[in-house]
């Protein structure tokens, strides 16, 4: 092989494309994606709704055949050996994995059996995983009787029952209350830390991507627009967001002049008595800024420095908000 793949690479995709036929013609949902995922990481795949996240994910888990391109997932070729891929990955779909009427034990054991795991072993592994996910004692309950957070953890247990090296989680925390989300995140970290499983998750929540992922891939309009750690991506935003509130709008022209004089300042905007701009290392800039304003006879009544969020990153990279 001329194209050497490192043993630490668990997903390697080149030029993945997917077009759908619709009544209005051909729609390119994914327009050629290259991505590389290293073993043992939690990788967040971030993008707004409709960006092509789920389509990419479905191609990687063999639920959709790519229109073009190729990928190797856990050492198996996506096109030539989809069954090999299926044996080695876990997949937790956005809309769940279990029938609400079915007993938890039935779903776990029947799912494990489809991977060739004997019943007794399936039960042993299932009880063990349920315990690890704080789901003791649910074996004979119906899946529909679990709370939203419990059901989501059960989905992950289902995805891990055959001990895959790589698990895909599609929008894991959608629809959960804040407490359940935080709890789910610690369990997802546990999947990597305790089981050594690589986690590839899609999300359209910035806080989720920020708090969980070692590495981020940002997708927009069917293309990857950025890649790196959350800190890397944040450093691409020009600086921190500075907000100053003045005593009166009359002081604004003077304040704008002072702000523009700050080294590296950009995006200076004023509105009424509120002045906003971006500057690198905002916390260090602030004392000098207030001193200079004082020298010009301007006394701010409020000052705020905000670190860039992934929201800001997305806005900088794509020119639109993640909520659009």
């Amino acid at each position, binding site marked *: 092989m001329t194209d050497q793949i490192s043993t630490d690479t668990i997903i390697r995709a080149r030029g993945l494309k997917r077009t759908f036929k619709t009544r209005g013609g051909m729609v390119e949902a994914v327009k050629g994606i290259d991505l590389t995922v290293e073993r043992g990481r939690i990788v967040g795949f971030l993008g707004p709704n409709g960006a092509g996240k789920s389509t990419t994910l479905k191609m990687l*888990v*063999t*639920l*959709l*055949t790519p229109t073009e391109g190729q990928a190797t997932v856990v050492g198996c070729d996506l096109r030539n050996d989809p*069954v090999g891929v*299926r*044996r080695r*990955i876990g*997949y937790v*779909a*956005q*809309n*769940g*994995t*279990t*029938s*609400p*009427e*079915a*007993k938890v034990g*039935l*779903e776990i054991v*029947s*799912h494990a*059996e*489809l*991977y*060739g795991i004997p019943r007794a072993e399936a039960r042993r592994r299932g009880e063990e995983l349920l315990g690890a996910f704080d789901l003791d004692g649910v074996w004979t309950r119906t899946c529909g009787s679990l709370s939203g957070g419990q059901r989501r953890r059960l*989905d992950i247990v*289902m995805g891990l029952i055959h001990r895959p090296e790589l698990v895909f989680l599609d929008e894991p925390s959608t629809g959960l209350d804040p407490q359940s989300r935080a709890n789910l995140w610690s369990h997802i970290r546990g999947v990597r830390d305790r089981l050594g499983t690589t986690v590839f998750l899609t999300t359209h929540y910035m806080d989720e991507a920020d708090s969980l992922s070692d590495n981020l891939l940002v997708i927009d309009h069917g293309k990857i627009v950025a890649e790196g750690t959350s800190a890397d991506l944040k450093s691409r935003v020009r600086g921190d967001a500075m907000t100053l509130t003045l005593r009166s709008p009359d002081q604004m022209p003077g304040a704008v002049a002072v702000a523009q004089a700050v080294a590296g300042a950009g995006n200076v905007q004023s509105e009424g008595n509120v002045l906003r701009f971006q500057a690198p290392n905002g916390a260090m800039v602030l004392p000098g800024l207030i001193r200079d304003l004082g020298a010009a006879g301007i006394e701010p009544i409020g000052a705020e420095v905000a670190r860039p969020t992934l929201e800001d990153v997305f806005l900088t990279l794509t020119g639109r908000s993640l909520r659009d």
Partner: protein
Amino acid sequence: MTVLRDTWIVFKRAMLLSLQNPAWVIIGLIQPILYIVLFGPLLTQMANVPGFPPGNAWNVFVPGILVQLGIFGGAFVGFGIISEWRSGVIDRMMVTPAARSALIAGRVLRDVVVLLVQSVVLIAVAIGFGLDVPVSALLLALVLVTLLGAAFSALSYAAGLALKSEDALAPLLNTLALPIVLLSGILLPMSMAPMWLQHVSDVVPFKHMVDALRAIFQGQIWVASVGIGFGLAFVFAILCLWLGTQVFRSQTR
């Protein structure tokens, strides 16, 4: 054989789910029994009308009800696959190494087993009312119910999974159900119909299946109509199972 193993696993899960909530099995059973109890006695009064086949009226009536059970016992299972798809179960199974054909075959097998239990109960009730046929005829009837049930269950899963909407599946089934019931001579033998209606019904394969079972229930096994009816049922079942598997496969295309 991994296909057989996977089919068995999918069957077991589906069967346990049905046993856990037998309400639908019982509801499915009540309807044909109502036909026997509330409609059968009417028919016995008609046995002397011109065109009505000779012999015991129950032997004419029960084959129709059995074919109806086979068709409609299978036809509505597609609603179940839509809700399974919606809760993510279908995608979850598609991402396992399981054979695609097993994912549908296991479910069809469950439906066939449920249908056979219903058929046995129905036959027992009918014998109480006056059905009088040899055991061999009853076994052939169960074979026909199996073929029809498997065909319609596979077809219904295919339609459900292709449409993914109860609102689209319901009108489709209703549109098909009425002409099938009326033209296959399930309730009244088509031999009583005027000529033009008989010709129309000749193109409906289920009419020939009802005819085949009626012949058997009247003690004729080695006649052409039996071969035609069973042959059609067999071909139809193979076709529907093939189609169902294709629809399951096409889900990941």
